[in-house]
């Protein structure tokens, strides 16, 4: 075989690939192929905007098919083929109900909220961090996720929660937070020591009736929606929609909320932090004066 023939063979091979692609493209206009991810009409137009990056749903659709469909399903309802083995169950995007928001309970999250959730992942679930995808890809996914529910066409995201500056971390703040932990009955789910063994823990279900576990503070795991004090503040002021965790925005004042944050940090015994150090030294001196948290602690305070 001469090199001329070699070149001809190579060129012909390329041409076959080319013609195969062209033929199929032509055929496409005549065949209503059952695309596994048709989505909604808004796929062509839906966008997201994250820090100057515009996400495109049409491109997010291809990424969804590659990365997300196994759990969240071809219909976006959280019924992917792997869902049966996953606990907690994957998010149902058709309801447009999201746990991690910076917006009030019952409202849609912002694009940034969805982007941050994809980026961060959920450490206590099967949802990994998708940071290995580049920012544009994550923005595209956000845009596509918004095509699953008509709510995105009818409603706007809620107003972003204003988080005031954090109050100083003091023993008084922690003690007041402890009072609130008792008074707001956080212990009923999270347990008196924060290890998710409260009397209601075994009975909790999510909005779809699936059993759900409260967060266990003692493991030192990252919170579901972030790892900073501001994230913790946001979690209980906005609630985790779709879960039994309510919003306390109408119940406590911002300063009280910071006190509660400071106390909750003391429950993270596996995660060294400033609040824990302060609390441990206080307990060493005044531990016997503290009333236990739980049903027998009428006043709940010290």
């Amino acid at each position: 075989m001469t090199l001329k023939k070699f070149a001809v063979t190579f060129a012909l091979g390329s041409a076959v690939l080319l013609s195969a692609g062209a033929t199929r493209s032509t055929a496409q206009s005549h065949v209503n192929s059952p695309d596994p991810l048709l989505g909604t009409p808004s796929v062509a137009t839906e966008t997201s905007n994250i820090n100057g990056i515009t996400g495109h749903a049409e491109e997010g659709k291809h990424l969804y098919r590659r990365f997300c469909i196994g759990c969240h399903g071809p219909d976006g309802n959280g019924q992917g083929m792997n869902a049966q083995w996953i606990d907690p169950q994957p998010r149902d995007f058709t309801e447009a109900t999201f746990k991690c928001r910076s917006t009030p309970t019952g409202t849609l999250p912002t694009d940034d909220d969805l982007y941050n959730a994809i980026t961060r992942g959920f450490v206590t679930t099967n949802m990994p961090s998708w940071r290995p995808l580049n920012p544009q890809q994550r923005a595209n996914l956000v845009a596509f996720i918004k095509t699953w529910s008509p709510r995105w066409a009818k409603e706007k995201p809620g107003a972003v929660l204003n988080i005031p500056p954090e109050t100083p971390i003091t023993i008084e703040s922690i003690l007041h937070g402890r009072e609130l932990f008792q008074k707001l009955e956080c212990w009923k789910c999270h347990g008196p020591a924060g290890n998710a063994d409260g009397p209601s823990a075994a009975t909790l279900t999510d909005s779809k009736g699936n059993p759900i576990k409260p967060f266990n503070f003692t493991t030192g795991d990252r919170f579901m929606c972030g790892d900073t004090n501001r994230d913790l503040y946001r979690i209980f002021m906005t609630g985790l929609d779709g879960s039994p965790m309510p919003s306390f925005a109408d119940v406590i004042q911002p300063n009280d909320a910071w006190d509660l944050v400071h106390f909750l940090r003391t429950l993270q015994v596996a995660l060294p932090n400033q609040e824990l150090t302060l609390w441990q030294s206080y307990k060493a001196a005044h531990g016997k004066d503290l009333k236990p948290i739980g049903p027998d602690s009428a006043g709940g305070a010290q």
Partner: protein
Amino acid sequence: MSKKFREGANPMNEFFSRWKTMLMCAFLLIAITACDVRTASALPPSKVIAIPAFARKYGLPCSACHTAWPELNNFGQVFRDNGYQLMNDRDSPIWQNPSYFPISFRITPNWHRETANNQVFDGPGGAGTGIGSVTQSGFDLSGMDLWSAGTIYKNISFVLLPSSDPTAVWHFEAAFIRFDNLWRSPWLNVRFGRFEMDNLISEKRFLFLSNNGGIYQIYHFTPPGDSNNFGYGDNQIGVELAGHSANSYTRYSVAVLSSNEGGVDFTTDVVPGAPPANRTYDVNLAFSQAFNAPGPPGESGFGQERIGAFAYIGQRPTSFQTLNGSPLVGIDNKPFYRLGFAADLSYKNLELLPLFMYGHDNPYLGTGLASNVPLPPGAQAPTFYGGFLEAHYYFNPQNVALARFEQINVGQQAFNNIGNGSGSNGNITAFTFGYRWYPIMFSRGGVALDGEYSRVRTIGEVPLSGDGDGTVANPFNAVWSSSIFFGIDFDF
């Protein structure tokens, strides 16, 4: 760098210039790019997604970690770099989840046709008097992988990969333990055992399966007459220090390896009967950096681009310490090195994998002579250079078209007075086309239909694929070797 390469002349043939090679590559790219992205939705769709062994543990689709299995995408690379951990609480060691069975099987029943010309065989005139083509075809089996991998403890991972050839002769293709995220830093990971080097373009995870197309020729190339058995794509045995940034955009690897081509039991192979190894060590260095290529304003970017460089510095024995004539230990080591750079480039659904490598062997390795004797007149250090351009077009996660063009030239022959003076002895030109379709990917396994056509042109040597009878009728004529392959590649 050889004079021939600097001047752009291809020593293989005057007709086949470097520019024609480049034009051919360009044509390849245009052809694949022209397969419009709209083709994707016209191809057979499916609502099912595969779950390889790790995905069973994490509940992720296989396409989350693979562009098309077994090739990794960046998410899979990060997972691998983190010691097979997603860094969430699902990373628990395998023994904590009884429903998880960390073993995968992979084998490929296939039909293939192999042919090579310019071969010697027995003819009417007696043994070795026939010259012509040798062709064989039929149904066949590939080798089989029995892959087990996972975490033994948080930040301690492992791989155990017993592998057999088609006749069920087993060996350990890979077996290592890795200590991950030392001092809680992703930049410090130590791997110990037998493993694939940190190749930006992996030969162990690539998508070609045919005899001729199923290897990167440049990874295994040595000039004619060279005694060096090194293969850059082969798994090696030793210890590696590696690290990466949080998203694995920046990666490095430094490996110290036995100078025995990954052999075990102090030999130079993983199966019995191999010559004994020597007592020296090689070093492999690899570095790569990825970045996001921005697109036009208001549009999505092109994708992730990665570029990298590598260097392998090694030694091989030129003779043996013996007992009653039988070799005991390799001695009289002589050096060699390989240098190169590679990239993994994306333009939306098109992935391009270019690689360039330069190789240099000591004259004693090049001539196959023991270093305790003087070199014959005219002997010199053989060099070679070349590389490949591989293209993948992903119509969707279940359909991928493949193509590769490869060219290797001997820059400097071991003897400057070889034969008729041909400088093209040993040169290789190869191309491969393929298509992989993953039609059914159930939750506990995956299936890929694989079709390939591959053609390799070698001068003076039998093809690296092993086609032919090992003897070239006329070493100054080209040997054309081709493969046609249809296989059903499945894992469980």
